[in-house]
């Protein structure tokens, strides 16, 4: 008989405790954050971009200089040529709301049953993990006249314009 058995028993107990604690800690974690997941970054970026357009669209006139409808109504119908923007007001507001994010903006609308898609803000080619968000505005002759745009709408005409924003991080 010797006393080695006691030491082995203590070692076994300690090992069992460590294993049990490890399994408990891991299995009881309610959320395991995996920030490396590209899709999680995309979800965040999509929400951020969508909120930025929503803020510009729905904010009171005192909060933003021009809301989304005013910005679109003021468009002079000229497509942007990189790096110049043809919707400077919207570009300024978005750059303030989306720091560290690059974006391109296109306007899509139907005119005489034909689809038109025009680039109005270009910041470069979208990256691999870019997301697209959109918001609709309706412009009339009144909003265009107030904003001084070049849409040339009739008195009884309304036009739905899709503001399509592609965003990505670099």
């Amino acid at each position, binding site marked *: 008989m010797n006393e080695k058995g006691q030491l*082995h028993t203590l070692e076994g107990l300690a*090992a069992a405790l460590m*294993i049990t604690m*490890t*399994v408990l800690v*891991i*299995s009881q974690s309610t959320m*395991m*954050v*995996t920030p490396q*997941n590209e*899709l*999680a970054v*995309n*979800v965040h970026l*999509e929400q951020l971009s*969508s909120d930025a357009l929503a803020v510009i669209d729905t904010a009171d006139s005192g909060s933003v200089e021009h809301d989304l409808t005013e910005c679109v109504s003021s468009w002079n119908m000229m497509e942007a040529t990189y790096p110049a923007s043809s919707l400077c007001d919207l570009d300024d507001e978005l750059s303030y709301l989306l720091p560290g994010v690059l974006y391109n903006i296109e306007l*899509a*609308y*139907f005119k005489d049953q034909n*689809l038109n898609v025009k680039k109005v803000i270009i910041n470069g080619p979208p990256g691999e993990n870019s*997301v697209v*968000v*959109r*918001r*609709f505005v*309706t412009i*009339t002759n009144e909003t265009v006249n107030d904003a001084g745009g070049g849409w040339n709408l009739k*008195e*009884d005409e*309304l*036009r*739905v314009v*899709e503001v399509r924003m592609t965003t990505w991080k670099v």
Partner: protein
Amino acid sequence: MESMKDNTNGQWIILSGLVISLILIGLATLANQAVIAGYHSSNAALEFPKESIRELNSHTRDNARIIKDLTLHINSTSNDTVPFIYEGLFKNYSEQIEGLYALHGETADLTLVSVNSTNGTVNTSDIDMIFVNITYFDGNTYYSSRPEIIEVNE
């Protein structure tokens, strides 16, 4: 050689190795599950057309008011009745929005049900309630509001 048969220390080393390898397998499985769960939850958030449905609904509500104002403006210089003008403008609006949704592979359907007034007359600015059927479908998610009741006298 004989003494090695009596030495049982090696059994502990083998058992420890087995336990450690089992722990490593368990941890790897859990980490893998976490990555898969993160992927699926993120993918579900990206795929679900929350903003599309919300935008369709809120934009229709906003436009019901814009169309009402435009209708009354046109009615002041036209012989057509308010409901007739409203229906024409709403049809034009719904065709445009349906076309823009179709560009993204989504089906949106807006149908004007009725133009209503609490005092029964719709020839003046008394119209205060619009009933619209809104339907959305993107192949996976179906949304319907039949009818969507829109207060336009705000």
